[in-house]
């Protein structure tokens, strides 16, 4: 089909990169934001703007909260068709309680799973989640959306599109295409080392877009490869559910043997039992960690088979100072507090797995690396966006001659996924600050409204990009680029202003108090606004130059000028080589 290997790779790179590049753009951008997901949560939920807290006392704070919980409506709705007969009024048989925290969490997210009587599939549970202030145990209103960790972060790996898990599959395919694009991109450009240092911003758009595409692609190549690859490994269980389908019998055999070996019961005994002091168990776990020279805080606290004689309590150390999310688990018998099992050091393979997933998820404390992740991710965005621009620039003159709408459509989609995405994100933050605390009855929950406005903003940006794209079909620059850049700048500044107006936390105050979660989001928004203005001005300048060039050589037309510039650049390159 293709004449040679390089042509095959070029075809793959162009077409797969184009189609899934639109998805990758969102994955890279919201992935970059997810590095600071908890900080964005603080910005979006002013009631949670206080210092990170350690895991609170179970006996005094957590237990009463857990005992007051009941499954939430969406869980019951899901279960209704999956049981024989009606659902009970109350759920009293707790399969598990759990709480997870990191060194960046002021509020604590907790969950409970309940056994469901007469359920068709034994793995189905009723669940409840809650967010509490760990200092008092008071619950936060459950209609507040954690925009960072509950919207931007899952958008990054599932597009928040959960029907049949389709969002995961699209992102998985996109990640695979990222790996393919990296390999095929390297094959296409043999002068990798030179491209590392080549950027000609004053050249024709096509040339400078390609330079920037190559530079960001090559410079961050290991970063891009690592993140696309580890992202796939993290969700391997979704993409290849081998051990839950074909090899499920083997999996169950392993679980039974493991329960025998570890002494952690797989099922309930059916005999009621009291719960000993969990705080004493936590203290014992911390004593054991300290004795091993690795004193630390609790990252994950879990209770399994609550209220049953087979119940046990698991205490995991927070991975603040290491790559694994949590580790050094110690399990206690819930009714007595006796140690059942102290987990041995992870095996070599487990350490590799922890390294790959832990480095991607980055819950450990390293602020500098955190910022490098953001820049690496944004560099990926630049790489993808310049790929789109190169695609359009290379073809639009030709398409204009042929009367094709191809480059116009690609350009409009590029506007949608680059500036349109920023408009959606900034619009969501503005909505978050403008919606009243208590909504009139009959309205959707506040967090849901914020999500609707996010998608509505994105859809509007798309309409605008397509409506304004007519000039591209004549070989020009879509004015939507410039207009949306200005919109992004205005909206980002508005979000910062609204944060000040509605909470009183202006930058002088937050920076003065070193309250970086909120100050950081504000500064990031302002920096983004400045960049957007700069980009808008550069687009204007280019559009004007292109118009001048077209006017200066009406006979030749701009197509030839671009071609000449490109061939001159190639000649220069050849002369250097």
């Amino acid at each position, binding site marked *: *089909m293709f004449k040679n290997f390089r042509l095959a*790779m070029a075809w793959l790179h162009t077409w797969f990169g184009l189609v899934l590049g639109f998805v990758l753009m969102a994955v890279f951008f919201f992935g970059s934001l997810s590095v600071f997901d908890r900080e964005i949560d603080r910005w979006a939920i002013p009631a949670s703007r206080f210092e990170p807290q350690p895991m609170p006392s179970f006996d005094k704070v957590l237990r009463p909260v857990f005992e007051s919980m009941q499954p939430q409506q969406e869980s019951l709705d899901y279960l209704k068709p999956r049981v024989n007969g009606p659902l009970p009024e109350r759920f009293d048989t707790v399969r598990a309680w759990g709480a997870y925290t990191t060194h960046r969490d002021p509020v604590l997210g907790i969950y409970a799973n309940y056994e469901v009587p007469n359920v068709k599939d034994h793995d189905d549970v009723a669940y409840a989640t809650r967010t509490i202030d760990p200092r008092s145990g008071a619950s936060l209103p459950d209609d507040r959306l954690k925009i960072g960790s509950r919207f931007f972060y899952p958008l990054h790996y599932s597009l928040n599109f959960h029907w049949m898990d389709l969002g995961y599959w699209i992102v998985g395919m996109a990640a*695979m295409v990222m790996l393919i694009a990296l390999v095929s991109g390297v094959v296409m450009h043999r002068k990798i080392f030179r491209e590392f240092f080549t950027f000609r911003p004053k050249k024709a758009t096509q040339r400078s877009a390609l330079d920037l595409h190559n530079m960001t692609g090559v410079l961050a190549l290991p970063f891009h490869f690592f993140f696309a690859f580890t992202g796939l490994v993290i969700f*391997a*269980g979704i993409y*290849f559910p081998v051990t839950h389908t074909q090899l499920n019998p*083997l999996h169950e*055999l*392993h679980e039974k043997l493991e329960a025998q070996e570890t002494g952690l019961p797989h099922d309930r005994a059916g005999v009621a039992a009291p719960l000993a002091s969990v705080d004493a168990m936590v203290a014992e776990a911390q004593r054991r960690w300290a004795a091993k020279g690795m004193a630390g805080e609790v990252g994950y606290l879990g209770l399994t088979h609550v209220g049953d004689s087979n119940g046990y309590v698991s205490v995991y150390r927070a991975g603040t100072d290491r790559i694994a999310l949590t580790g050094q688990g110690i399990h206690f018998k819930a009714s007595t507090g006796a140690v059942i099992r102290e987990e041995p050091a992870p095996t070599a393979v487990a350490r590799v797995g922890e390294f790959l997933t832990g480095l991607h998820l980055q819950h450990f404390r390293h602020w500098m690396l955190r910022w490098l992740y953001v820049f690496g991710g944004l560099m990926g965005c630049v790489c993808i966006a310049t790929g789109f621009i190169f695609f359009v620039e290379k073809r639009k003159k030709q398409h204009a001659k042929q009367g094709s709408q191809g480059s116009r459509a690609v350009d409009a989609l590029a506007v949608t996924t680059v500036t349109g995405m920023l408009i959606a994100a900034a619009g969501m933050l503005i909505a978050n600050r403008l919606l009243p605390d208590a909504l009139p009855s009959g309205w959707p929950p506040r967090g849901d409204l914020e999500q609707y406005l996010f998608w509505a903003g994105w859809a509007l940006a798309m309409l605008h990009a397509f409506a304004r794209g007519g000039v591209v079909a004549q070989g020009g620059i879509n004015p939507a680029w410039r207009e949306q850049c200005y919109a992004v700048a205005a909206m980002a500044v508005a979000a910062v202003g609204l944060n000040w107006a509605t909470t009183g936390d202006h930058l002088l105050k937050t920076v003065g108090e070193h309250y970086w979660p909120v100050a950081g989001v504000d500064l990031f928004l302002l920096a983004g606004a400045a960049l957007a203005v700069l980009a808008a001005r550069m687009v204007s300048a280019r559009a004007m130059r292109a118009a001048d060039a077209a006017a200066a050589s009406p006979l030749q037309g701009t197509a030839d000028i671009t071609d000449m510039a490109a061939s001159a650049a190639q000649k220069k390159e050849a002369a250097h080589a």
Partner: protein
Amino acid sequence: MQLAMTLKRVARSEVLWRIAAAVLGGYAFCWGLIALSVAGLYALGLEFHDAETLGSILAFLAYLAVFLWAFCAATLRPVWLVLAGGGAALAALASLIQHFLLA
């Protein structure tokens, strides 16, 4: 003109077959690879989840390789044979091992 259009149509169906071989054939092959890694390595004494981790790490790298191969191979017949046929064979072998482990 007509010849050019026929050629174009042939090329389009060929592209679709390449994509199917790379995406679906590659998936089948990697499924088989994971299945055999889990069952085989577990049978050889590796911890179950370790075998699973190792299998999926290998599988995604393999997916990348066979995907590229599907696009640069001269003809598609060996690609389908190795990816779909090989994937089925690996998966069957995994089920066989599972059968003996459970027996």
